């Protein structure tokens, strides 16, 4: 708000006129009515339900309207272990959600595979296929932690800039590729645009480190 000066703004406010940028209104309305996708994978989903139930009452944050269809949702909560058998469906659901959309990886399993990381059928983190906005550690995270994640996401939405948002950028891909069931593993095992395997520092020679 560089164009209005503060004196004029407060004077207008006294008369019930609020001068805010469109961006503020847009973000404020989005952050105050997040509609999550009703989609539980494992143990964390129960804590998600507990957050929506009477004691923790997610409705206080305007995020209690769980939609069963991805077409009406704008937040995907990956609550639980994503197995390789489930991963294509998760990506498909993500593709079906309208932009702008956000993703919360709830629990250790959704972040990295968690305690089940060594399993042959466990995806080592949903961020291999879709971009994640907020990670909640814990196995499972308590409802308070989940509410904290919602508040973190609200802060993130608040700070969105219309001209920088991914969904308004024509060059960004509209859909994320859905992995296929392979003979031994998912194909491909990760979406390289979203995720690259971490480089082992012992592969790096000293010269490379010096060069930065």
């Amino acid at each position: 708000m560089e164009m209005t000066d503060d004196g004029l703004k407060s004077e207008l406010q006294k008369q019930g006129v609020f001068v805010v940028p469109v961006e503020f209104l847009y973000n404020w309305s989005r952050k105050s009515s997040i509609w999550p996708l009703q989609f539980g994978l494992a143990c964390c989903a129960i804590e998600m339900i507990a957050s929506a139930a009477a004691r923790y009452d997610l409705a206080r944050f305007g995020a209690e309207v769980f939609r069963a269809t991805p077409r009406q949702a704008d937040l995907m909560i990956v609550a639980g272990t994503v197995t390789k058998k489930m991963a294509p469906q998760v990506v498909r659901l993500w593709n079906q959600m309208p932009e702008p959309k956000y993703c919360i990886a709830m629990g250790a399993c959704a972040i990295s595979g968690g305690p089940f990381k060594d399993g042959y059928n466990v995806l080592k983190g949903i961020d291999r296929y879709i971009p994640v906005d907020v990670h909640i550690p814990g196995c499972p995270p308590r409802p308070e932690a989940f509410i904290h994640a919602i508040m973190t996401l609200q802060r993130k939405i608040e700070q969105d800039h219309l001209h920088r948002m991914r969904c308004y950028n024509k060059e960004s891909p509209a859909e994320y590729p859905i992995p296929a069931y392979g003979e031994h593993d998912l194909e491909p095992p990760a979406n390289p645009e979203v995720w690259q395997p971490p480089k082992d520092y012992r592969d790096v020679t000293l010269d490379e480190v010096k060069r930065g």
Partner: protein
Amino acid sequence: MTPSFEQTSPDAKPVFLVERDEAVAVARKLKNDPRWQMDFCSCVTAVDYLKEDYIEVVYHLYSVALKHGPVVLKIRAPRDLAQCEVPSLTPVWRGCEFQEREAYDLFGVRFTGHPDLRRILMWDEFKDHPLRKDYIPPQDYEWEPTPHGEVLTRAKAQGGTIPPSAVVEVKK
């Protein structure tokens, strides 16, 4: 081995190791004999004995009518995938249906006579049988500070496609 049906105390947990061709007959006898009445097949699983070179399918049977058990039925099959088959006991106890499918999925034991033998936990295109002791998981490990030495050795022996980040021996 043909079990003797004269044993009167099933609480002593008799274990019957039966041959593959007589398994169904033994199972039917156990189910229908008035002294046993093993009408409840509780648990079906397989165990992969790598050194002994066989896979053992284990059935735990209980009797709801007489409230005794368990009686254990074991059937052995060679580990070799082509010959790894045992007769299905699903026609005898319906409760074996899903558990035998699971054993087929994870161990590769083919149950002949099973009405619907498909993979149940993994997807249909999957080729391996992951609970066999010589199964090699796909190489999608990230480098992490905990040692994965054994996994790396096995992966190297396989000569598969290993990402460069994984082929590092963990120095102790």
